[in-house]
């Protein structure tokens, strides 16, 4: 392993991170708050980053294993350091709680332990939502967009950080690809912020909610989330943008260069919208028939919550833990699905499920016609057997980790439903679970410190799609 090169990239990550931390500092100063919590964070971050840059690498080559270690270690480091402002400002005094909150932010989960929203300074609140925005597109993709990285090795890193079964470049240069992705990301965040401003939110609320939606995170400035604004317009704007950020960003690039035909023909995008349509219909029907909610209201609530869950954002307007059981089940299935590949959403990803479903269909047909040759097809192209296998491996890991984490949570004394949905919610980077304790109205604060650390790990595992963290903890990686 090329340790010096790994240190170098990690050092670069920390320096960038220190620069990003200046933004909440400025925000805090604007509201006349103390800059101390951020200065106390920026100094050690920058110092550590500078220290890591000291050893000059002999070779600049990075193999796949190195990239996984960089991504895994990098994310753990920024989670550890990002927790400091919460502790120093005194808004979340326990470091474990602060770490949980930061990892939840960076992994765009949105599960919170915060209970006293009024006690948190505005600068720290800005930082809390800003972590969603940083984590959504990825800090290493950002690094690639701004720093000259040796192109041939950077692809490994991109692959390790960007979610989805396959990662393609938009333009020949990786650096330009990363830049395009970030420009689209910034552009859409700004558009959402303006839309929210028009709907009557303050600049502060609009910007922070735009950050949270863009990363498909789910932190809100309000104790009762988006419901706190009591505005249907705000809810609708946020719901639409949650769906937009749950779509593959490559589609926006295609739209920008005018290939809207390709966008219309994109199978994953169609499947995503179809899932939303069906789920909204079924849930609205359930709310209408079983809870007697009037049709308009039922459709509105169903739309917001389906968008929120399927895009893995986790904003809440209604306490869906009180909905009919079958509506909850639909939401749990959506939690497993997650967004599209190449979006900021989490979960298994629709394209993976589509690949597996089609592959299973081919295998089933192959049972009765053993000599027939089939091809698994996505977007009109053959899916390589290696990709099918990788998707299968991913789902296997997902299932194993889901059960393992749920089982371990039982040691903390939580019931099965809470344990399971907490596990799914963290692995898929959603936020709320399906029981009142951890639902939209609940909080993760009651978990013990070890359980919080476990869920912290689960969130990072989910965001990085397992492999970087698993490689990091595999003894084999560190041998020789």
């Amino acid at each position, binding site marked *: 392993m090329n340790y010096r090169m790994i240190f170098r990239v990690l050092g670069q990550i920390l320096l960038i991170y220190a620069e990003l931390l200046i933004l909440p500092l400025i925000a805090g100063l604007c509201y006349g708050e103390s800059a101390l919590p951020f200065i106390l964070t920026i100094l050690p971050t920058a110092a550590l980053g500078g220290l890591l840059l000291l050893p000059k690498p002999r070779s600049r080559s990075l193999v796949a294993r190195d990239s996984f270690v960089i991504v895994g270690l990098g994310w753990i480091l920024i989670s550890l350091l990002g927790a400091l402002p919460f502790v120093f400002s005194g808004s979340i005094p326990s470091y474990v709680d602060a770490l949980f909150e930061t990892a939840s932010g960076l992994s765009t989960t949105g599960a919170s332990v915060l209970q006293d929203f009024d006690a948190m300074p505005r600068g720290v609140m800005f930082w809390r939502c800003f972590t969603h925005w940083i984590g959504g597109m990825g800090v290493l993709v950002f690094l690639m967009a701004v720093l000259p990285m040796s192109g041939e090795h950077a692809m490994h890193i991109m692959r390790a950080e960007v979610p989805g079964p396959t990662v393609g470049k938009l333009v020949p240069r990786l650096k330009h690809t990363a830049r395009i992705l970030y420009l689209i990301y910034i552009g859409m965040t700004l558009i959402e912020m303006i839309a929210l401003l028009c709907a009557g939110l303050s600049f502060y609320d609009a910007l922070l909610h735009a950050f949270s939606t863009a990363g498909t995170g789910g932190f809100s400035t309000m104790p009762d989330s988006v419901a706190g604004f009591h505005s249907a317009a705000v809810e609708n704007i946020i719901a639409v943008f949650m769906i937009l950020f749950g779509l593959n960003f490559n589609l926006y690039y295609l739209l920008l260069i005018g290939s809207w035909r390709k966008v219309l023909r994109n199978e994953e995008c169609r499947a995503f919208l179809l899932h939303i349509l069906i789920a909204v219909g079924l849930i609205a029907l359930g709310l209408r028939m079983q809870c007697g909610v009037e049709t308009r209201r039922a459709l509105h609530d169903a739309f917001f919550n389906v968008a929120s869950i399927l895009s893995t954002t986790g904003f809440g307007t209604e306490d869906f833990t009180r909905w009919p059981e079958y509506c909850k089940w639909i939401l749990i299935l959506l939690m497993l699905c997650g967004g599209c590949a190449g979006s900021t959403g989490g979960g298994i990803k629709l394209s993976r499920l589509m690949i597996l479903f089609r592959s299973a269909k081919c295998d089933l047909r192959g049972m009765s016609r*053993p*000599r*027939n*040759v089939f*091809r698994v*097809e996505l977007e009109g192209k*053959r899916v390589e057997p290696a990709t099918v296998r990788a998707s299968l491996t991913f789902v296997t890991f997902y299932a194993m980790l889901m059960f393992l984490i749920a089982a371990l949570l039982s040691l903390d004394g939580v019931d099965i439903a809470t344990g399971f949905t907490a596990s799914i919610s963290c692995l898929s980077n959603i936020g709320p679970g399906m029981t009142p304790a951890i639902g939209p109205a609940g909080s993760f604060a009651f978990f013990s410190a070890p359980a919080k650390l476990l869920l912290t790990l689960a969130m990072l595992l989910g965001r990085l799609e397992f492999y970087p963290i698993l490689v990091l903890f595999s003894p084999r990686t560190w041998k020789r």
Partner: protein
Amino acid sequence: MKIVIAGAGVIGGSVAEALAEEGHDLTVIDSNPDTVRHLSNTLDVICVEGDVADPELLREAGAAEAELVVAATEKDEVNMVCGIVSHHLGAGHVIARIRDPRYLHQTEFLRSALGLSQIVNPEYECARQIARILRFPSAARVVTFSRGSVEIVEHRVPTNGALCGLRLSDMSRRFSSRVLIALVERGGKPLIPNGDTVLLAGDRLSITGSSDDLRRFFHEIGEYKKPVRRVMIMGGSRTAVYLTRLLQESGIDVTIVERDHDRCDQLCDLIPKAHIVCGDFTHADVLLEDGILTADGFVSLTGDDGDNIITSLYARSCDVSKVVTKIDREHFAGVLADSGLESIVSPKELVAQQLARYVRALGNSSGSSVQTLYRLSDGSVEALEFTVHEGDACTRRPLRELKLRPDVLIAALIRGNKSILPDGSTRIQPGDHAVVITAHRLRSLDDILEEKP
């Protein structure tokens, strides 16, 4: 006419043979010394050994003065280079054999970009021929004129059938469908019939008419077969890919059996909607498992004539209603007719016809030009389609008063979108398309007359 043929493989060789028979001056280039030696011994042509894309060699072979250069090697790209070089050397016309499916819809672009006069694609022609047969399975073979408004179909008279012992002058009284028996092949000898001809069992007939009339005719004689719905294709060649696409356009379900696993994967990519089976087509259980008993069409397209014949015979024994066999060595075709395999397709024969038509049209700069040319029977009889021009001698009188050469039959006239079955009082008009069956080598329509005016 001076013609250079670059590449004398299966296709190039048969083209050379066909053109040499027509009496043209040929120079044949091939890189294989054995082929060159064989050709110079069997055909009256000049043979040159070497690389067909070599400009120096092409100049030496006379491509600069040639009226036509045919690039017919195995490789598309070599043919393209040969075409470009010949075009720049100053050859009158250049025909290149380009057969990759990727180039199929680029014909116009390739023609203008490479300076080609025409592109021939034996595999595609073969696939079209087979698709026509499968769409009209009552006939052993189907050829079309003027974009399908007139067809010639081949049919063998079965023993005890309605046609057995029929005198042709009785045809119009016995059947309501307006068709014409244009050629009778008896005991391997072609015979252009007249009203007194009596049909016998075992005769191979070439019947002309519009496709509706032909369909009605086969209903009337009780030989009508429904169009096929499920086709099995042996061998995943390029022809199979073309054919599958053509058949899928008419909603026919296609299963391809191919031995090579990598090729199977490619086929999945090329024709995703077809069923691809990876297995040995000479094993009966492969065919049984994948539905030969429910198929009503069977096409063998492997590279091996033997495999094609064996699998076709097996398909017949499984009562598949329409069996088409591809044969590369067409001198076996005659033998096969007796075995019950009647629909035989030969890609190189199709290309030879296409080129013969092109050359015939080149040789005749004035007057009615050859639009279509098919060789019927064993090649001694041709069916040609001419466009009739103002001032052609045969437009002056009704047919009855024209002095036609012996062994000439005007099988159909196409006027606008309508096809006319000619009789004595019919008059050929300028603008018509005339389909002529003849044992002569015609260049223009007026060649059908006994003496030129």
